[in-house]
């Protein structure tokens, strides 16, 4: 989510609220006979406010689960989640007087630390990374479809290699329309076949097939495969340059396509990595948030009792 001017009201409101809370806290902590305590009137107020903000932030998941509910715009919920969640942590610190307390409260506070920091990291990632991704990965696709697209790329590469090899071996039937057109334009009148315009080279064809089987297909079919030569743009380019020397210029466009397929695979791998970074924090943030709310509710009830 881009944190832009549309957040101004939430930002100003949150910072103002935090400033008021801080302004109240300083004299309260200085003049409390035994220091700030969660059970005092002021401490309880901070605790209740902080927990309500946490609850609101936690309700975002429910709001997303039921998008048809008429309870405000999803964007507003997201902004509220972001800013109220942000100030809930200092409020809870004020509530406890910057002490983590006993076992339950210590566990709660450490969970909150992780939730809060992961939230901030997540917000920063969501702010910066999508733009970075757009600039860096023009061939990105839907994350969940990367496996499927990778398979399609492998198939496309196989076809291209087969087509190239056929052309090299003189099989007209498997030559592409374009090759046939090129041959026709370059061919002679006297019953020459299309393939006769190309120099048949069994050895090069075999090398290309070997390249497909040993390098290209394994690379395209396997996610990541960072150790393979084709995972590095410069190495991949060098390999394709060697084939360009061996292949006639008419077939260089096929090599360009193959190289482009490898580039797309590299981008998909990179997208996959960035996606894990962009969304991986949620694996910490969301589960810990639920645990925090659950134990926080226990703490609230117990604190009222004792």
């Amino acid at each position: 989510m881009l944190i832009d001017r549309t957040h101004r009201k939430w930002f100003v409101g949150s910072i103002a609220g935090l400033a008021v809370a801080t302004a109240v806290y300083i004299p309260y902590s200085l003049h409390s006979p035994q220091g700030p305590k969660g059970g005092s009137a002021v401490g309880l107020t901070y605790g209740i406010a902080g927990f309500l903000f946490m609850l609101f932030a936690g309700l975002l998941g429910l709001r997303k689960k039921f998008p048809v509910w008429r309870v405000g715009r999803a964007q507003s919920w997201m902004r509220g989640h972001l800013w109220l969640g942000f100030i809930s942590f200092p409020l809870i610190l004020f509530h406890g007087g910057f002490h983590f307390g006993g076992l339950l409260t210590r566990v709660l506070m450490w969970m909150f630390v992780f939730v809060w920091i992961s939230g901030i990291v997540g917000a920063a990632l969501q702010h910066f990374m999508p733009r970075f991704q757009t600039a860096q990965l023009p061939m990105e696709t839907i994350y969940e479809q990367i496996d499927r697209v990778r398979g399609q790329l492998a198939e496309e590469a196989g076809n291209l290699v087969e087509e190239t090899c056929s052309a090299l071996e003189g099989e007209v039937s498997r030559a592409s329309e374009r090759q046939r057109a090129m041959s026709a334009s370059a061919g002679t009148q006297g019953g020459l076949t299309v393939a006769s315009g190309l120099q048949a080279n069994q050895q090069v064809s075999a090398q290309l097939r070997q390249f497909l089987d040993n390098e290209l297909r394994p690379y395209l079919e396997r996610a990541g495969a960072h150790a393979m030569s084709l995972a590095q743009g410069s190495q991949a380019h060098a390999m394709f340059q060697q084939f360009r020397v061996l292949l006639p210029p008419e077939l260089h466009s096929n090599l360009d396509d193959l190289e482009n397929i490898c580039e797309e695979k590299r981008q998909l791998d990179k997208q996959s990595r960035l996606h894990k970074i962009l969304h991986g924090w949620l694996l910490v943030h969301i589960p810990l948030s639920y645990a925090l709310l659950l134990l926080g509710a226990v703490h609230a009830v117990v604190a009222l009792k004792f």
Partner: protein
Amino acid sequence: MLRRTRTTKKLAKRIDLQYFARPHPFRRWRFWLSLSIPAIALGWFIMQRAHGGQKVYSSGQLSRAHAVFTEQCALCHVTQAGAFIAHVNDKACLACHDAPLHHANQTFTPECAACHVEHKGAMLLQATADAACTECHAQLSTRDGQAHYATSITGFDNQHPEFAPLRSGKADPGGVRLNHYLHLQPGLMGPNNTRVQMTCDDCHRTAGGGVWPYGAPGVLPVAATQPTLGHPSNQVYMALPEFAKHCAACHTLQFDKRFGNEQVPHDKPEVVRAFLLKRFGDYIAAHPEAVHEVNPPDRQIPERVRVPRVARNAAEWVQFRVDDAQWLLYAKTCKQCHTLTPTGGPLPEVAKSNFTARWMAHAEFDHHAHRMMFCTACHTRTTDSRETSDVLLPGIQTCQQCHRPQGAAKEAAEGRCFECHEYHDWSKAKPTKGGFTIQQLRGSIQTSVPKG
């Protein structure tokens, strides 16, 4: 030349349009973690509750004094019948502790827990915050409307008055002449005609080994003679000056050369006179020929030369010798330290000593805690003091050099109110009746019994 093109149509054909309906590993992970982490947290909490009772709710470690019943929350958190709330109230504290009133004229009595805050770790509960005291003492008001103490004290370094004995017009009421300056001079004549250099701890000690260096022969060791002055430790206050312990070795009380170094008792004039009558009576009975001897008194005061008198009989001889000895004692020996008032009779009245054991009646001071220092580091005026009436107590500024309310936080010694003052008036303390068994305090904890 690149032939691959990425049109929207081509890209759309790549996508499985139902992809969102099938769970992706990332979503699956998120789902299961969202279930399992809270479940683990809840499980942890239930386990804690099952094994540690209510300890998991504790907001922090108990103080050292209460750590023994950490498991027994209900000892302090007493639940009223049918109520959910289990806040700590004073009754729970008073079940074990007596808490005498601070002052009869106080307008407000805080709850125990307002000052003695628990669950703050292994600390001393009496280490209360200054704010608990200044809540009243910053603007002191009393029930009778009269201010008995300074009415505006906000801290040891802020508006705390000078110690009462040092305020103007106060003098040491000791009653015995003592010149500190003189006693600390080098080469003083000490016991058995030796030259000595006295130091402070020759006379001023709390407890410890050794004997009093200038005490009478046979005087008890220091530790055995140390008064506690109502304080549980016997190393807190200095021993009160006593003739036998501090003076007798140098300030001898010989009364007549016939008796060598024998001394009169350091007691009331009547006792001294009775002693003299007996000793001289015994002597003349054993030496009847001495009645007609004419000997000048063995010690004379140069400006007041005493003419020797000749007795006609033993009774008169005893009377003359007792008079001579008393004259020597009361004109010189005793007078050196005591104030003597003529009564019209044969014996003067000796002013009673009135040493001050605790100079600060409303505050505690621990000499033992300051034992690493020179005495004169704080009692700075001692070496120049020539008058008995000099109050040699250090002033508040001396204390403030080390003690500050912020204590260790300001790289200083503790300076909060509790360091010197006690809230409860323990002179009014009542004995507390025990009401708990070991099981009640410790819960179901089993003590291990050695096998065999």
